[in-house]
């Protein structure tokens, strides 16, 4: 686990550093150097307008991190609050909240996020808010399922019968019990948000087409796939590496490979 956490921290730190410093101006157009291969001056080469690919990737990293942070923060807060409130309140409120959440889950996530970005716009912060809202239903259902298991435990009944209030009980007993599984879920969710943001910018409804988002870059550069696949593959790799690092950081280690075969009981 710690190595995986370090890996994620390293990748995120790298992306953060890249946001603060780029080798070139990511918007500087230089048609003389269009589609140039990697060189000392341009470590990853240049795109069809002669812009430095590495610098554009770096700016995209920062934007992606901002989106992921905003979306995770908002989604986790809302989902945790609603998901804990539903089982604790019980009765009609619980029914309403959970039914509403599963109804929202029916809509394809991408469409929901697209509709929300149509409302808020597609700058990193607003895209983060949209993705956070679009994933809230998922968080809510998961938290509610986790909390339900705690509510069946005798210690919950004991705490409630001792006269502790619902809110206090939820903080003392529910939150710690729900936290580990929720954090794991959040890790996979972080990876999914990185991917989802690239999809949003790839479709590009309301996106700023000059901003170097990874999805936008792939949309632009796919036309040059045959001449220089490097342009498309580099942002794709960036998405995959960031998502993989986030995914691994929280993914529980699963029992892998063949389990020891059950021995046939001898005579």
């Amino acid at each position, binding site marked *: 686990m710690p190595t995986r956490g370090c890996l994620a921290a390293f990748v995120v730190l790298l992306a953060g550093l890249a946001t603060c410093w780029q080798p070139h101006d990511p918007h500087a157009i230089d048609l003389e150097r269009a589609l140039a291969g990697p060189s000392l001056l341009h470590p990853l080469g240049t795109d069809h307008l002669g812009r430095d690919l590495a610098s554009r990737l770096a700016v995209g990293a920062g934007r992606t991190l901002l989106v992921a942070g905003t979306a995770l923060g908002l989604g986790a807060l809302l989902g945790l609050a609603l998901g804990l409130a539903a089982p604790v309140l019980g009765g009609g409120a619980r029914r309403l909240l959970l*039914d509403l959440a599963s*109804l929202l*889950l*029916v*809509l*394809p*996530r*991408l*469409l929901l996020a*697209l*509709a929300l970005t*149509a*409302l808020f716009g597609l700058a990193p912060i607003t895209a983060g808010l949209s993705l956070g809202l679009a994933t809230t239903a998922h968080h809510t259902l998961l938290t509610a399922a986790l909390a339900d298991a705690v509510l069946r435990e005798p210690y919950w009944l004991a705490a409630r019968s001792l006269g502790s209030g619902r809110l206090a009980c939820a903080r003392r007993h529910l939150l710690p019990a729900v936290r580990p599984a929720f954090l794991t879920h959040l890790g*996979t969710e972080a*990876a*999914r948000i990185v*991917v989802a943001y*690239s*999809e949003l910018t*790839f*479709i590009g*409804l309301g996106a700023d087409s000059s901003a170097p988002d990874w*999805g936008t870059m*792939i949309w632009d550069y*796919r036309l040059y*796939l*045959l001449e220089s*696949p490097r342009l*498309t*593959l580099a942002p*794709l790799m960036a*998405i*995959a590496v960031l*998502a*993989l690092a986030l*995914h691994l950081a929280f993914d529980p280690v*699963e*029992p*892998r*490979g*063949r*389990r020891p*075969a*059950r021995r*046939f*009981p001898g005579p």
Partner: protein
Amino acid sequence: MFRAVVAGVGLAAFLLAAFLLLRIMPGDPAELRLQRQDLGGAQLRVEMQQRLGTDQALAEQLSVWIKGLLRGDLGRSFASDRPLAAELTRRLPWSFAVGMGGLALGAMIGIVLGFASAARGGTAALAGRAFAVAGQILPSFGVAVVLLWLLAGHWQLVRPLTGPPAERLLLPVLVVAFFAVGGFARVVTRTLQQVEQAPFFTAALTKGLGRSQALRRHGGGHAMLAVLAVLTPQLGWAIGGTAVVELVFGLPGLSVFVVEGLRNRDYPLLQAFLLIAGLWILLARGFVSMLVAWLDPRPRPFE
């Protein structure tokens, strides 16, 4: 019967909420349409609003829509003025084929992979896990673009943009399947590992069955139930969730049409889509729950 009524009322409420939410969304369909034609001005805008009917009161618009639905008329697109029913029936099969074809192929590969990894482990287990992780960290358009580049551009094996429909569908179905395999394989493996712990599995082994034979015969039902549980939430995604893939492969599907409708604030189109998607979900869920009841005859608590 009772459940069908509840579902119908739920769908109606959902559509009503969607109807209102769409109109709260910023952006005026009349103005957006004028913009696309490079026109503007207050006079034209009022005329266009009258033509689209968005100048009327909400209740009036709602009653127009409901009356149309009762006649079986989905209305006309705000963007093209063409009747939606015809357009949607032309586009629906494409999206449906990509979504359902991909899910079915993914489920088949996933089940085989899951079985193999539970029975033998080794390469199959590794492949299942690789698919699961790849499905989480790769964007579908990226896989689509790379497939397009390698198979169609570099090696020229398929003609995804110009070939007959089956050839155009091949790569999109592969992409959707690629993202579905991991989940199915994982859930099948996990279920079979639980089956291995069960007393009835030991009993099967004592009868003299081999491991993989016993898994097939006594774990198959459990694995199918788990697959159905994973499949159900994904079914919703079969209509309308494949926009990115359709965009890359230039398919005239429903999903890209809906994304376009979202951009144009094409209210009738979005409403028609939500109606179709809602009906589809209800039907699919009903069918799956019947299938589950048939596969799993164990009594369950009264709901």
